[in-house]
């Protein structure tokens, strides 16, 4: 029973519900309503792709199913999901910070999606292994929300003006430093980056870590058999330090945010910017066909393969375990997931310049999506990508220590060794 008491415009007092906890919520048309908890406050503006997919789903299933957003900025969203997990009111489907996934799994609040994948072989095929990143011995706790392609965007016009050749797959780290020196001499900021409240914005360095063997050693480190402070990762952090010392980064990087740094790239005062496909639409608007995309430098002193890219599953979307309590809700949730990973949704993604988590034949960005086409071009080299981005493979505290470490080295407050030791410390506190 749910009793409502209306008091001037939307003031409701919900009495404690007795019994029928698992009854499905219906809207006026009789459609089963499920909630999608998303990490932005304003999905239409801030996650237009997902918003469009949800709208398409709602339209196709009018009177049958309906997806509604439960929207809040990332920080509030993460808090909310934790609290709602404690009282069983999680939205049916929600975006999950992957570094917190194990915490959610341990609390047994996530639905194992193995069953869903078994019932929908076509989805499993389309995901092309992207689901593996979210499979543990406790089950399939999530599915990739999107595909992230991460690397360095560059502005061809500024490269031309400085008389510097565009970077290629073969550009080495030393050549990269030369490039930086010339760009700096031409009066632009070579690589824009901001650390204030944006330590997560280190995407270009995921590839660096991986080219120094992160993917091969991380499981050993997490198991306690190896340390972050090892010869290879020390080299990787050394390179970050050299980059900073070369003067590539904005002087005031500690007081600017990711948004300010991006603006420097947008308005042509910075030549390069590390990010992912989510910024494609913005670059199309500001830089247009002058945009180029590059994975990052080749490191000749590394023993690990340099033919690696960074096309990785983004954070997962997870399903609340309570979905299993009600057949109608479960049906609606599965229908939505099936749609979300279907071809129509993938098309919508491409239209909005996002890489979907799925792969379907014959889908490609339109020719005026310059930034995304630059990424597709880079992807054509056939490099392998790890199962997940390095920063997404570790628990929150270690992730934070990784972010602090990278920016600490860039800002000169940590040596590479100190940064890595901090990560070991965070791991030890787990």
């Amino acid at each position, binding site marked *: 029973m749910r009793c409502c008491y209306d008091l001037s415009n939307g003031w409701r007092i919900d009495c404690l519900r007795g019994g029928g906890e698992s009854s499905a919520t219906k809207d006026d048309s009789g459609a089963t309503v499920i909630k999608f908890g998303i990490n932005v*406050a304003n999905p239409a*503006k801030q996650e237009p792709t997902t918003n469009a997919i949800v709208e398409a789903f709602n339209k196709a299933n009018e009177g049958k199913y309906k997806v509604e957003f439960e929207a*809040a*900025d*990332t920080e*509030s969203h993460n*808090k909310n999901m934790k609290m709602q997990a404690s009282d069983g009111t999680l939205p049916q489907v929600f975006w999950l910070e992957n570094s917190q996934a194990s915490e959610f799994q341990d609390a047994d609040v996530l639905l194992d999606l193995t069953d869903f994948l078994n019932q929908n072989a076509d989805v499993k095929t389309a995901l092309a292994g992207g689901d593996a990143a979210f499979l543990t011995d406790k089950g399939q706790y999530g599915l990739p929300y999107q595909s992230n392609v991460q690397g360095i965007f560059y502005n061809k016009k500024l490269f031309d003006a400085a008389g510097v050749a565009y970077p290629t797959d073969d550009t080495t780290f030393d050549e990269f430093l030369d490039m930086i020196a010339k760009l700096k001499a031409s009066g632009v900021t070579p690589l824009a980056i901001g650390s204030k409240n944006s330590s997560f914005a280190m995407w270009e360095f995921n590839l660096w870590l991986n080219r120094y063997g992160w993917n091969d050693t991380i499981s050993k480190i997490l198991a306690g058999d190896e340390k972050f402070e090892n010869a290879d990762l020390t080299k990787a952090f050394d390179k970050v330090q050299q980059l900073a010392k070369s003067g590539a980064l904005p002087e005031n990087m500690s007081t600017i945010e990711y*948004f300010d740094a991006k603006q420097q790239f947008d308005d042509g005062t910075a030549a390069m910017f590390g990010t992912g496909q989510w910024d494609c639409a913005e670059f199309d608007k500001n830089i247009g066909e002058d945009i180029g995309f590059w994975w990052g430098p080749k490191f000749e002193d590394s023993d690990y393969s340099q033919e690696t890219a960074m096309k990785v599953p983004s954070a997962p979307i997870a399903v609340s375990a309570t979905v299993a309590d009600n057949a109608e809700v479960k049906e609606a949730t599965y229908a939505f997931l099936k749609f979300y990973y279907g071809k129509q949704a993938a098309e919508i993604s491409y239209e909005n310049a996002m890489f979907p988590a799925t792969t379907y034949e014959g889908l490609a960005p339109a020719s005026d999506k310059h930034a995304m086409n630059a990424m597709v071009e880079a992807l054509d080299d056939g490099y392998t990508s790890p199962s997940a981005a390095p920063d997404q493979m570790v628990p929150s505290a270690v992730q934070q220590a990784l972010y602090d470490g990278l920016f600490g080295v860039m800002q000169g407050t940590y040596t590479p060794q100190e940064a890595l030791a901090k990560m070991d410390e965070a791991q030890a506190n787990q």
Partner: protein
Amino acid sequence: MLTKRSKIVMTIIMIVVTILMVFPFLWMLLMSFKSNAEILSHPLSWPKALNWDNYRNALKTLDYPRLYLNTFMVCVVSLVIELIITFLSSFALARMTYKRPGLQKAVYGFLIAGLCVSPFILLFPVYRINLFFGLREQWALVFPYVASSISFNTLLFVGYLKALPVEIDEAAIIDGCSIWDLMIKVILPMTKPVIATVVIFNVLYIWNEYPFASVMLRSQTDYTLSMGASFFKGTYTVDYGGIVASSVMIIIPELIFYGLFQKKIVGGMVAGAVKG
């Protein structure tokens, strides 16, 4: 009375201080007419033209009447509850006699201690407590807001009530007042300035409160004004223009409200009351 010259000097100092204090606010007004790229790339420049886009955009993005109404309702309900309960308790602490003054001081100290707590410590526990009592939507905000105001209100009310001369009570008692008469007809009217102060601060607190609002409210139809800014700042995008414009729209009513209430603090009522 002040001499003319000292008045002029004081007015000049006042104007200088005011300009210094208000400068960032004026700057913000200017920013609200600039595009997002202009704000980021040329923070100090004069806006190219009086560009109302940010306001139009803000009005399109947010349902302001609803936000104002929600915030207003939460404000009114919280304020009514907190003023009643904290006035009563402060009256008991400030103007009643205790056999054990130590107990009185202990209760006072206990109530003041809440000032030392940062709100975010309370978030998780309060969420569960709300749940336990079945408090949802705006009710999930009202009680935390009332509770958060208790320390501040006690501090101000008790301080003020203690300063009122004891003779007032004695005179009232001789006139045959009951405790309710004394409290409501005699003391309460004399407390207007401090009530105005308390009202101002609590309204502004609730108007701007974000941590509780972002966590307790789930449905957009319940959102309060302070949630507005998050609609312009996502994980990968930010619209400073929208944030600034929506902030201006939040602040202007506050300033007007403050201006109106500030006059209530003007008093000298104590003096009058003592004589009467």
